[in-house]
Each structure stands twice: as structure tokens, then as C-alpha cells.
């Protein structure tokens, strides 16, 4: 038995109008200040008013939401007693709302109760349905089943990954009216995150036919539309398709997992404080090359990426698999150059000395990153070090 979890998805221009069809009058909106300042919150509240729904708002979510904040919102939400919980924002907002939704259904719960063995969580949504409205195209948090919450423990901030398939939102509303306002650099970084999610998920150890289909389409759409949306953020067609691609890639990796591109990217970002999309966008090429070089003859990575290249028309069906699979790397190179995305760690302004000084910490973190074990090829300590060194220099992985 295996499974594929997904919310109901409403997408395209005016997708927000679908709120009309969702029963429930009292809405609890979870968002952040930026969303309010950008006027997006008003877009939503105007719509709700028009539909005769009432609402209360919490707009103080911070990036990397902390446990105390979440517990404060839990209290506010529970006192308001909504019929609908609506998250309007990026990954941090949606993650916060997932946790609030679960703790609204089960007020006796704390963060630690939201774990994968808690069967009650399959039964969420009796008190309120949960609607995720992403305002950026990238994280896929609107369709994934985990929430990352920070806790201060023994003098350090610990990131708790609370994961349960019941935390998948009831609805994801993908209205391009929100991402259309994303500035070019954010579009690029989050767009690279989409591509990393889709490409990594294809060979991650939870890969399945559902996730593969969505990853393939997400790659096709994001390679086509990311450069357009980056250069002309107002292009509606590009924004709409990139928004859909983000959710498809979210469904793909949410059900199939990610692996060492995200592992090495997460750790790089944590140590050098670099945005997520930038890090995983850079590391993706090196992680993919490392997997394509897998000496294990039973590994299917070459076959899978060759098939992708053939399906998307980059290679002919009769082409040699190794050659076709390498076109994935070539496509990434073309994209990096077209949009001016950094191709190596050095381009982030990190000195070689700083990288070497932090290499031990980076590799230790890699070994403790959950996605690290989902790779078809598991790097040793020396491999992790060399992946970073090669990625620093921009050298193709030859081991």
C-alpha cells in the first residue's frame, strides 16, 4: 500500500472566486505584515465581505515561525471559533496555519502531538476546513504535509518538522493575482526552488507514478515560464503557469521526497544565511550529477532522467540514455545563463577560506537533514565535502 495526498486545487485567474462555494461563514485569516502592506490581504477580505463572510485576522507571522507565536495564534483562533481557516502567504504562513488548524480541531494538543503516528490527525476538518492561498510560486507548502516550527531548546533554535498527511490543506487556491507582484529576484529564487523540487523528486526514494507525472509537467512548465516571469513579472500567462508548476512540484516532492540537492542546500543556507531558493538552485546541478554518476548498476537515475529528456523532446527516443540524461544538466546550465542565476557557491560572495572553515559543520548538518537519506546515492563524509568543494569552484562532479 502506498498513497498520494493532495488538497482540492482551484487555479487560474479569479480562482479566489471559488470561496463562494466553500461553506462556512466565520473565517480566521493567518498572514503576515508584508502581505497586508502589499494590499493582498485586502483583496481577500474584500472578497469575503462580498460573499457575506465574516473574519478575524492574525497578520504577525514571522519567517521561521516560533512555537510561542504558534501557541499564541492557537489561543486566538480557538477563541474566535471559525468555520474556515485561511492561510494567505508564503511557506511560513501556511506552515503556521497547518499547525493552528490541527490544534483548533484538537485544542488539547501541543506541537509535539502533531507527529506521524497520531492517527487522529487523519480526521482534521470537522470544525473548520483549511484553505491555503500561496502568494509566492515556489515552496509548495499549500499541498505538502509538513510544517516547520522553531523551538528554543537548550540554548539553540531547533527546527521541528511536524509531519502528518492529515496536515495537507483541504483546499489550495492558486490565484495568479498574488504572485504577479513578486519582485524579479524573488521570482527567480523561488522559481529555482520549484525546479529543484521537481527534478529531485523524480529520483527520490518515495518516487511513484503520480509524483513522476506531476514532476515532469512541473519541469516543462517552469523551464518555459520562469525566464518569462523573471523578465516580465506582469506576464499573466507565465505567472499563472509558474504558480501551477509550484504546486505540481509541491505535490511531487510532498509525496516522493527530496534528496541531497535540498540537503546540501538547506545546510549551506543555514550556515551562510543565504535564501533557500538560491542555495538549492545552485546545489541542484551538482547533486544531480552526483546521482547520475552512481556506480550502483541497479540505480535508475540515468534511465529516469533520460526518459525525462526524451519525454520533453530534448533528446530522441533512440538516443543513448547517459547522453540523454546529461541533457538535464545542460538544460539547467542554459537556464542559469539565460536568467543570470549563480552557478557556483563562490558567486554568493562566500570565500574559500570560509567554506573550508565551515565544511565540518556543513557535513555534520547534512548527515542530520532528513532529506539526506532519500537519495538514490548516499554520499559519504568525503563525498559531501567534495560536492561542496566542486560546487564552490563550479566544477562538474566527476566522482
Amino acid at each position: 500500500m502506498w498513497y498520494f495526498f493532495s488538497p482540492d486545487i482551484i487555479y487560474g485567474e479569479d480562482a479566489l472566486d471559488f470561496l463562494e462555494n466553500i461553506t462556512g461563514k466565520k473565517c480566521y485569516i493567518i498572514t503576515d505584515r508584508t502581505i497586508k502592506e502589499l494590499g493582498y490581504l485586502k483583496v481577500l477580505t474584500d472578497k469575503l465581505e462580498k460573499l457575506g463572510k465574516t473574519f478575524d485576522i492574525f497578520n504577525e507571522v514571522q519567517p521561521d515561525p516560533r512555537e510561542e507565536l504558534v501557541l499564541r495564534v492557537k489561543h486566538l483562533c480557538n477563541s474566535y471559533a471559525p468555520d474556515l481557516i485561511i492561510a494567505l502567504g508564503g511557506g511560513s504562513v501556511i506552515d503556521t496555519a497547518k499547525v493552528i488548524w490541527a490544534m483548533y480541531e484538537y485544542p488539547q494538543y501541543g506541537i509535539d502531538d502533531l507527529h506521524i503516528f497520531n492517527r487522529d490527525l487523519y480526521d482534521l476538518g470537522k470544525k473548520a476546513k483549511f484553505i491555503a492561498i500561496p502568494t509566492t510560486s515556489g515552496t509548495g507548502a499549500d499541498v505538502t504535509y509538513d510544517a516547520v516550527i522553531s523551538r528554543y531548546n537548550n540554548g539553540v533554535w531547533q527546527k521541528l518538522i511536524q509531519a502528518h498527511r492529515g496536515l495537507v490543506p483541504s483546499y489550495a487556491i492558486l490565484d495568479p493575482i498574488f504572485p504577479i507582484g513578486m519582485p524579479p529576484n524573488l521570482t527567480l529564487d523561488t522559481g529555482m526552488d520549484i525546479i529543484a523540487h521537481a527534478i529531485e523528486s523524480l529520483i527520490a526514494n518515495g518516487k511513484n507514478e503520480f509524483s513522476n507525472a506531476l514532476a515532469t509537467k512541473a519541469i516543462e512548465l517552469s523551464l518555459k515560464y520562469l525566464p518569462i516571469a523573471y523578465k516580465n513579472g506582469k506576464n499573466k500567462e507565465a505567472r499563472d503557469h509558474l504558480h501551477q508548476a509550484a504546486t505540481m512540484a509541491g505535490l511531487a516532492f510532498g509525496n516522493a521526497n527530496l534528496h541531497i540537492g535540498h540537503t546540501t542546500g538547506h545546510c549551506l543556507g543555514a550556515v551562510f544565511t543565504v535564501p533557500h531558493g538560491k542555495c538549492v538552485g545552485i546545489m541542484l546541478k551538482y547533486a544531480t550529477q552526483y546521482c547520475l554518476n552512481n556506480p550502483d548498476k541497479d540505480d535508475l537515475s540515468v534511465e529516469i532522467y533520460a526518459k525525462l529528456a526524451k519525454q520533453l523532446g530534448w533528446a530522441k527516443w533512440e538516443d543513448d540514455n547517459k547522453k540523454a540524461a546529461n541533457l538535464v544538466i545542460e538544460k539547467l546550465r542554459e537556464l542559469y545563463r539565460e536568467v543570470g542565476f549563480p552557478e557556483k557557491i563562490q558567486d554568493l560572495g562566500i570565500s574559500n577560506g570560509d567554506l573550508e572553515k565551515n565544511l565540518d559543520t556543513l557535513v555534520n548538518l547534512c548527515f542530520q537533514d532528513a532529506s539526506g537519506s532519500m537519495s538514490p546515492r548516499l554520499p559519504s563524509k568525503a563525498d559531501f565535502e567534495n560536492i561542496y568543494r566542486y560546487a564552490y569552484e563550479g566544477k562538474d562532479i566527476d566522482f
Partner: protein
Amino acid sequence: MKILTKEWLDAFGKAINDNPAYSEAASWWEGNMLCVIEPSGPLDREVRFFLGLYHGECTGVKLVEEGEEVDVEFTLSGPYDNWVKIAKKELDTIQGVMSGKLRLVGNMAKLMRATRAAQEIVNSLQNVETEFL
């Protein structure tokens, strides 16, 4: 070696220590584990074994007698058939836990940081000649 015998378990502990990838991946790990193999398929009684795990090393293994108490940080339980799938690498340990095929008692946040280490324990088992029931 017949699975779940003392001889097999000793070989398992030795295989963990002979696997450099485990010591690299688990250099930070502190936490002993109890594995509970519940009757299913050809196994007609419950078998429990202890794995001492500290800083990338397997510090000891032991079959735990019925009624015997052991002090562990994590307990992983499930039916024999599911354990066999893990041992044969047909099922990933963490996926097994995530899908409820195995149950874990212990600190989940800590376990989520040890997915690679868990995988290397299973990889070590590949080097033990195992005769299944």
C-alpha cells in the same frame, strides 16, 4: 545465520561497527534502541533485541528476555514481515515508520535527524549473511 539468533545479532552489531558510513552519519547520535519484532508470518512469538548506539558506534547488542526491562530512548516495533521488508531493503525504515508499518516510541524530532544513520544500520545488515525464517 538464522535471523534473530544470538549469533546473528552479534554479527549485526559487528557489521554496524564495520560500516564506516554508519560511524560518519551517526557521529552525533546518542540513544539506545529496542527493536520489537511482533509475531507474524513464520514468527510465532515476540522477539526483542537491544542495540546500544553511541557516537557512531554500536556499543552492544542483546536479545531481551520476556519480562526483562531495558533502558532505551527509542523503541521500534512492528510485525516480523515488515521487519523482513526493511532488512531486504524493500521498505525504507523511515518510510516504514511514516506509513505506520513500524511504530516508534521516542523523540520524533531527534529521529527525523537520524534518517541517514537509520539507513546505514540497515545497510550494515546487508553484510550479514541472513537466513530468514
